[in-house]
């Protein structure tokens, strides 16, 4: 395995050097690394790049896209008022908030539950494609995009927490006025799987296709 042929010269990987993901120590991998190699300081397994990053990210992304459909079509919450049960999906919940006068709340829930998961899925897809197509442009912007989607991802859990708290509070003895519905399962799964997808993507791959003369420092 001659790593220096596959990576541009300024990448640490071109010299068979790996950064520890836990403690940040830079180590030289043994030239005939057929076995697992560990960080000499903190014993974390060392890799030049995350293993099977692209395949794993694609698999998780496709699963998340698939689950995104029931997450938005199935009701997440059934609320009963005056004997009438109303089933709300994420979107109809937002519409309900908007029409009952809580515009600010509606915007917050809309961004956290609908915009964030979709933007995260789409931008991660673009990043994976950019690596596969070996795009060389806008590397810094793509790096910033990855940093951003990593930061905002968890906020889509908002609706799950709201449902949990409402369900716990709105019941009187045996009478339940609010119940969580199956959409919540799909929705939670989308959040978790998207988190794993972002974790399995290795942003260093975006820089592996650049030539030395492309770079400006």
């Amino acid at each position, binding site marked *: 395995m001659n790593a220096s042929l596959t990576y541009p010269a300024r990448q640490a990987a071109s*010299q068979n050097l790996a950064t520890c993901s836990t403690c940040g120590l830079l180590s030289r991998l043994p030239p005939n690394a057929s076995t*697992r190699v560990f960080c000499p300081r903190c014993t974390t397994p060392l890799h030049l790049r995350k293993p099977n990053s692209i395949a794993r990210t694609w698999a998780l992304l496709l699963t998340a896209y698939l689950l995104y459909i029931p997450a938005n079509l199935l009701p997440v919450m059934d609320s009963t008022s005056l004997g009438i049960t109303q089933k709300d999906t994420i979107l109809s919940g937002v519409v309900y908030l908007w029409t009952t006068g809580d515009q600010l709340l509606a915007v917050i829930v809309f961004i956290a539950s609908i915009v964030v998961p979709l933007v995260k899925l789409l931008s991660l897809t673009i990043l994976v494609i950019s690596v596969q197509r070996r795009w060389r442009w806008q590397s810094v912007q793509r790096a910033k995009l990855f940093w951003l989607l990593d930061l905002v991802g968890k906020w889509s859990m908002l609706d799950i927490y709201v449902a949990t708290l409402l369900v716990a509070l709105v019941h009187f003895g045996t009478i339940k006025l609010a119940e969580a519905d199956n959409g919540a399962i799909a929705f939670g799964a989308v959040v978790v799987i998207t988190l794993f997808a972002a974790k399995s993507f290795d942003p260093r791959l975006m820089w592996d296709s650049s030539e030395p003369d492309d770079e400006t420092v």
Partner: protein
Amino acid sequence: MQENMQSGAPVNHLIACPDCDLLQHETMLAPGEQSRCARCDTVLGRRPYGGIDRPLACTLAAVVSFAIANTYPVMALQLQGHRIEATLIFAVEKMYQQGMPAVALLVLFTSVLAPALRLGTLAYLLISLRFGYAVPSFGRLFRLVQEIAPWVMIEVLMLGALVSLVKLGHVATATPGLGLWALAATMWLLATISDSMDECDLWQRYEAAFGDTRVRMEPAR
């Protein structure tokens, strides 16, 4: 060492950016300074003021406030003489009883177990380092602290509680409980812990406690 295990050879004075893998010289930082990657602007190293004492103090305070957040009700609802108070665990239990074990488990993990695991492990590691004890599996435990960080969602839970308060306010009298204030304190402390953590100093203390076991090597040409 077992035959299927090999350890890398540490390279001194050089680091690679964790986000773009650009090889660059390690810079010595003064307290308050930080270094960034020359190519992609990712923060490479930070030296916050306060050394290890500040993150340690915040971690211990967060352990206390998080314990309070889990024992006292997060919010209460009053309707026609009925009063219902809900702690986090009670809310998770209700979700479980409604036939939603997966969702209940997700909430339990992200709002109770993950923060508890992060804070507890961090407190153990920081106290040991502060007083110069060598923790046998320090590397593995520190890795746990880092890997679990994305699953700690206290700040999202806080926003969720505020949204719930407003929503419930339409049908009944909803009031925040002591647990919610403690949760807010925990959220702030968790952010302060991350901000004040000097990882460079942490690993130096670790090596001092253990004796430097690293093999010294000349920087790569």
